[in-house]
C-alpha cells in the first residue's frame, strides 16, 4: 500500500465537504461581521449585525416562535412512544399498521402541506366542519390566519408527519430489550402497567434521549411546512429559518441574515449539548 492510498480514497468526499460545508461555515461567520449585499462593496461592521438583530422586534418574535416550536418534541415523544407500545404487542397485523403509519414520514413535505392546508381551510375545510358539527366551536376557527393558532396548526402537521418515523425508532429500542426481563417481572407478579413503567420506559431512556435531540433540532430548523402552509402570515408569526430566508434571498441583506444563521447554529449546538447532558445525568 502506498502512503497516498488512504488519502486518495478520502479525497472526493473531502473535496465536497471543504467546498460545500467547511468553507461556507467559515464564510457565514465572516459575513456576519460585514455589511454584505450583491451590489454594494463589502464593509467591516464588527458586531453591528448582531446588535441589529438582537434589538429587532421581528427577529425576537421569530426567535420566540422557534422556541415555542420546540413543544412538538414532548408531544412527538408521547404519541410515537404510545404507538410503538401498541405495535410491540406482537398481535397479528401490526406489520400492516407499521407500514401504514410510516406513510406520512416518507411523503414529501410539499404534499403533506397541501393535504393539511386543505384540512385547515377556514370556509370549507374538514376541521371546521367537524368542530362545528360536534359543537366544539360555534363559528369557523381561524386555523391559519390568527396567531398563535396558525403556528400551532403547523406544529400539528410536523407532529403528524413525524409520528410514524419516531415510532419505528422506539420500536427498534423496544425490540432490543431482552425478553427475559419482562418474563421475570411477570413471574414476580408485575402488572402490565408496572412492566411498562419500571422496565420498558427506563430501558428506553437512551432512545428517548436520541429522539428528543433529533426532533428538537429538526424543530429549530423548521422551514418547509411554514413556507408552504402559512406563507402569507407576518414574519413575527413565523420562525427563525423562514425569517432568515426572507432576509437573505428576498431582502438581500446577507450580512444580517448570516448573523441570524450564526445565532441559529449556537442555539442548535447548545441544545444538542444540554439535551445530551441532561439525559446522561438522569
Amino acid at each position, binding site marked *: *500500500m502506498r502512503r497516498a*492510498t*488512504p*488519502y486518495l480514497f*478520502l479525497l*472526493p*468526499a*473531502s473535496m*465536497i465537504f471543504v*467546498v460545500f*460545508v467547511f468553507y*461556507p*461555515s467559515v464564510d*457565514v461567520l465572516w*459575513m456576519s461581521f460585514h455589511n454584505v449585499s450583491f451590489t454594494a462593496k463589502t464593509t467591516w461592521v464588527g458586531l453591528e449585525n448582531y446588535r441589529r438583530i438582537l434589538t429587532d422586534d421581528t427577529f425576537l418574535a421569530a426567535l420566540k416562535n422557534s422556541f415555542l416550536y420546540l413543544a412538538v418534541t414532548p408531544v412527538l415523544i408521547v404519541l410515537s412512544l404510545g*404507538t410503538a407500545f*401498541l405495535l410491540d404487542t406482537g*398481535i397479528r*397485523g401490526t406489520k400492516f*399498521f407499521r*407500514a*401504514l*403509519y*410510516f*406513510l406520512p414520514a*416518507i*411523503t*414529501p*413535505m*410539499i*404534499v403533506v402541506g*397541501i*393535504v*393539511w*392546508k*386543505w*384540512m385547515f381551510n377556514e*370556509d*370549507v375545510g*374538514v376541521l371546521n*366542519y367537524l368542530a362545528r358539527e360536534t359543537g366544539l366551536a360555534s363559528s369557523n376557527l381561524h386555523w391559519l390566519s390568527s396567531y398563535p393558532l396558525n403556528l400551532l396548526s403547523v406544529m400539528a402537521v410536523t407532529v*403528524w408527519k413525524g409520528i*410514524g*418515523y419516531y415510532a*419505528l*425508532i422506539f*420500536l*427498534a429500542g423496544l425490540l*432490543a430489550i431482552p425478553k427475559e426481563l419482562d418474563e421475570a417481572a411477570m413471574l414476580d407478579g408485575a402488572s402490565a402497567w408496572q412492566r411498562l413503567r419500571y422496565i420498558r420506559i427506563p430501558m428506553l431512556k437512551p432512545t428517548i434521549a436520541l429522539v428528543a435531540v*433529533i426532533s428538537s433540532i429538526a424543530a429549530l*430548523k423548521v*422551514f418547509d411546512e411554514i413556507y*408552504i402552509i402559512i*406563507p402569507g402570515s407576518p414574519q413575527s408569526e413565523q420562525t427563525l429559518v423562514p425569517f432568515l*430566508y426572507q432576509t437573505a434571498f428576498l431582502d438581500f441583506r*446577507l450580512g444580517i441574515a*448570516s448573523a441570524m*444563521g450564526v445565532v*441559529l447554529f449556537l442555539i*442548535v449546538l447548545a441544545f444538542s449539548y444540554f439535551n445530551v447532558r441532561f439525559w446522561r445525568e438522569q
Partner: protein
Amino acid sequence: MVRRAIIIGCLACISLFMVGPFLWTVSTALKGSEEVFAYPPNLIPKEIRLQNFVDVMELLPLGTFALNSLIISVITVAANVLLASLAAYPLARMEFRGKRLMFLAILSTMMIPEQVIMIPLYRVCLELGLLNTFAGVILPFSVNAFGIFLLRQFYGSIPRDLDDAARIDGCSPLRIWWEVLVPLSRPALATLAVFTFIGSWSNFLWPLIVLRDTESFTLPIGLSLLVSTFSANYKFVAAGAVLAIIPVLVVFLLMQRTFIHGLLSGSVKA
C-alpha cells in the same frame, strides 16, 4: 381476546388519523368545481372527475418537474453511495496519519445545519456558475457524514481475512474495495440509497434557492408554485399532490423491507 380487540381498535383509530387526510385530498382531486365547495362536505364524490388530472398537467408541466426530480434524485443517490463507500474504506481498514482527525472532521459536518450555511453556499454556487443548474442542487448533497459512518460500521463487520486473502493474491486496494467490500455491503448501501432517495425527492429549501427557471423546477418546487397560484382552485392543487405521491408510494411498496429494517436495525439518520 378482549385485549386484542382493544389494541386492534386503537391501531385502526390511529390509521384513520394517518390516512384520512390523504383520502380527503384524493376525494377533492376527483371532484367538480361545485362539489369541492359543497357543505356539508362529502367524502365520496357524487361524480368521479378524472379531468382534473389532465387539466393540472396543462396548467403546469408536472411531467417535466417529475423528470427533473428523478434525474436529480438518481444522481444524488449514485454520488452518495459511491463517495461514502470510497471514503469509508480507509477509515475502516487502513492506518494512516490524521485518520482520527479526518473522521472527527467528517462527523463534525453533521453539527452544521444546511439552513445555517445556505447564504455562503449560495455565494459558492454563484462563483462556480452552479446557480439554476442541476449540479448546483446535487453537489452540496452529494455526500454526507451519516452515509460514511454507516458504511464504516458495516465494513467493520466484514471479516478482514477476505481483504487479506485478496491482497496476497495481488489485488490493489481499489480492487479489494470494488470486489470484496462493495458486493458484501449491499444491505448497507441499499439502506443509504433508499434514505438518500427519499431525502432528495422531498428536498425543498435548497432547490427553492438554486433553481430559477420554471422548466428546471423539481416536483416539490413546481407544486409550491401550483399552491401559490391556484389556491382558490384547490381541486387542481389536490390533483397535483396526488400525482406527486404516486412515485413515493411505488418506491415505498417496493423497498418497504429495506426502509423498515434499515430503521429497526438502528441505522438512524440524525
